[in-house]
């Protein structure tokens, strides 16, 4: 038995309201584009200013923006989409775009490219990053890379040079021991415990020539990989060069104010390059960013430039060409991007990037330089993750905690997690 969802829901709703439908106000003559994104006030201010510029140039288009915090955003968006009230312009995340595109909630943008949507100047790898199963579903709003955020003052106090892009996992041990010897700020550690951080695992796997997922959407690593991963972190933990399991568990993997660097438990945390400014905002000490550690002197290709966020268009939108035109403006217009800055990441259109670069503050410059100077650390963008990949990510943290708190050995947790991940990926619906 198969019932069209909207028909079914609408049908039952209509029954209940007994013909009360039909009260919806007629839409005005001008085009009204609803836009939804997650973020803070800073992002909202910049976005709305860009919207005003757009409306000034296109008086027939009115933009109504809404923004929510990350946690609230996805519940709101899912409800609106399921309720047949999806906004026209949707800010998408690199992971969620797969979930939404696979379920036909987003419109393919290929038909607009070269017409409403101008991608001539756009970085090729960032166009790839917006594709799912060969179709374009999202336009990257900024190139981004994972990065270690470092507390400069703490490294100075400990008398340890700042990690650079040649830093290795072996160095985590030596630097950690130096920190312990210096015993600064009530026993601050050098590095955080990264065993439950999926981007750190991915970076490590990529240096080993693997990845989280294969192009076919299968798991890209095996029991051995994960056992070694947990073993490596256990070695650090046993040597006391990373925070205790309890301290590390304060970081729930979400808010930046709970990261080990923000809490003063360690002098480093695994974040994204565009979060440097946000981390600085909650910290007194000066911070900077550097690459994730290499697995050895010749470990390379772990990093990649991924879309920090993307604009997508709802498949239910009645104004797709107008929305595409707006996206084109958003990524290509120099004035708009002087307002937007690099708050969402490094602009992906070359001419825009050149125009924006000189106006940036010192820390934004750091992020921009970091992403464009990754050298041999930079590898190709991985294939889009399969459905349910988000759940696999979320399950890594509790599994790593089992090892950290001594409830499982790395030799048990490695195979257990691989099995769990396979089970999750094989689930339908």
């Amino acid at each position, binding site marked *: 038995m198969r019932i069209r969802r909207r028909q079914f*829901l*609408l049908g*039952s*709703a*209509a029954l*209940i*309201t007994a013909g*009360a*439908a039909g*009260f*919806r*106000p007629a839409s005005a003559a001008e085009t009204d584009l*609803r836009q939804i994104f*997650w*973020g*803070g*006030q*800073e*992002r*909202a*201010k910049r976005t*709305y200013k860009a919207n005003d510029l757009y409306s000034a140039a296109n008086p027939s288009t009115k933009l*109504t923006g*809404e*923004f*929510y*915090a*990350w*946690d*609230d955003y996805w*519940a*709101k968006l899912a*409800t*609106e989409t*399921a*309720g*047949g*009230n999806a906004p026209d312009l949707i800010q998408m995340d690199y992971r969620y775009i797969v979930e939404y595109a696979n379920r036909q909630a987003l419109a393919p943008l290929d038909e607009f490219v070269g017409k409403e949507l101008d991608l001539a100047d756009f970085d090729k790898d960032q166009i790839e990053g917006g594709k799912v199963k060969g179709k374009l579903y999202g336009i990257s709003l900024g190139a981004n890379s994972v990065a270690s955020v470092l507390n400069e003052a703490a490294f100075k106090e400990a008398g340890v040079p700042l990690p650079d892009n040649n830093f290795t996992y072996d160095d985590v041990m030596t630097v950690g021991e130096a920190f312990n010897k210096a015993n600064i700020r009530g026993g601050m550690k050098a590095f955080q415990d990264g065993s439950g951080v999926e981007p750190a695992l991915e970076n490590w796997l990529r240096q080993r020539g693997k990845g989280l997922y294969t192009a076919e959407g299968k798991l890209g690593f095996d029991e051995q990989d994960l056992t070694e991963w947990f073993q490596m972190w256990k070695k650090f933990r046993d040597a006391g060069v990373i925070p205790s399991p309890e301290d590390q568990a304060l970081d729930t993997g*979400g*808010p*930046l*104010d709970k990261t080990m660097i*923000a*809490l003063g438990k360690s002098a480093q945390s695994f974040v994204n390059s565009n*979060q440097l*400014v*946000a981390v600085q*905002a*909650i910290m*007194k000490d000066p911070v900077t960013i550097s690459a994730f550690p290499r697995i050895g002197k010749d470990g390379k290709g772990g990093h990649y430039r991924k879309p920090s966020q993307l604009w997508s268009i709802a498949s239910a939108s009645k104004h797709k060409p107008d929305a595409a035109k707006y996206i084109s403006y958003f990524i290509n217009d120099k004035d708009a991007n002087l307002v937007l800055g690099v*708050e969402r990441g490094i602009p992906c259109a070359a001419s825009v990037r050149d125009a924006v670069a000189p106006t940036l503050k010192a820390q934004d410059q750091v992020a921009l330089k970091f992403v464009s100077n990754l050298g041999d650390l930079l590898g190709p963008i991985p294939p889009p993750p399969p459905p349910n990949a988000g759940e696999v990510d979320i399950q890594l943290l509790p599994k790593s905690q089992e090892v950290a708190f001594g409830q499982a050995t790395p030799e048990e947790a490695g195979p257990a997690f691989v099995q769990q991940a396979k089970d999750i990926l094989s689930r339908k619906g």
Partner: protein
Amino acid sequence: MTSEAARGPSAVGGKKSKRLNVILAHAALVIASIAMLYPLLWMLAAAFRPENEIFSTSSIIPSAISLGSFVRGWNGLQVSFSTFFINSFVISVLSVIGNLAACSVTAFAFARLKFWGKNIWFALMLGTLMLPYQVTLIPQYVLFHNIGWVNTFLPLVVPKYLAVDSFFIFLMTQFFRGIPRELDEAASIDGCSTFQIYWKIMLPLSTPALVTAGIFTFIFTWDDFFGPLIYLNDMKNYTVTLALRSFVDSTAQSDYGGLFAMSILSLVPIFLFFLFFQRLLIEGIATTGMKR
């Protein structure tokens, strides 16, 4: 205060031991108060701290007092907080009226009237308390979307007039049951209609219950964020609680000072509402004088 002091059981007993008892009771209450209030004081202090010191100390005495967080917070969003306060107030007051009216008539029916299927309806009423709202959310959204109520206060307020909040029906039913039946029987013999019994006997006698329900409705509505999150789109329609959530995005820069400052301010109206009506809580009981 004197009439109150005479009410408690402690009015009976030796004078000396009574005094000691009072001192002990106060001591216990003061210690408990401090424990209760410490976290709130911490938040208050955080709101007054300069922005970069918020997480640097767990002391509740700020090194310097700064009003910066309040100023930043008040105008930190595209719409000023005065609008959010007005919205919250309108929604909360309308909800209080709706809940009191609708739940009290329903509770009266359950507590006092006899009708076919009463126990079944009562069980169904309780049953609606038990289903997690997360799963009825989407069908309800579809419903309100189709009547064109999304982005208005209506989905948040109208249900209150249809007594969908079983908690309050149950609360009032329990209270009504505690009122001696002789009173309404006497009124019934005097020729009062059922409505008159509800209006002239039950309602005045259950002022404490109504005030309790009113206070709770106001506070629960004020604190609710999921309903406003789902049904309100335009920031001009936001409530205070929803606006507060816009301060913290886990992936970008968040203004914690502004969050704490506005959190403190958002407590003020509900606290005042509570302070004002809690007097009625006592007076209501004092005037009815539940003697048999």
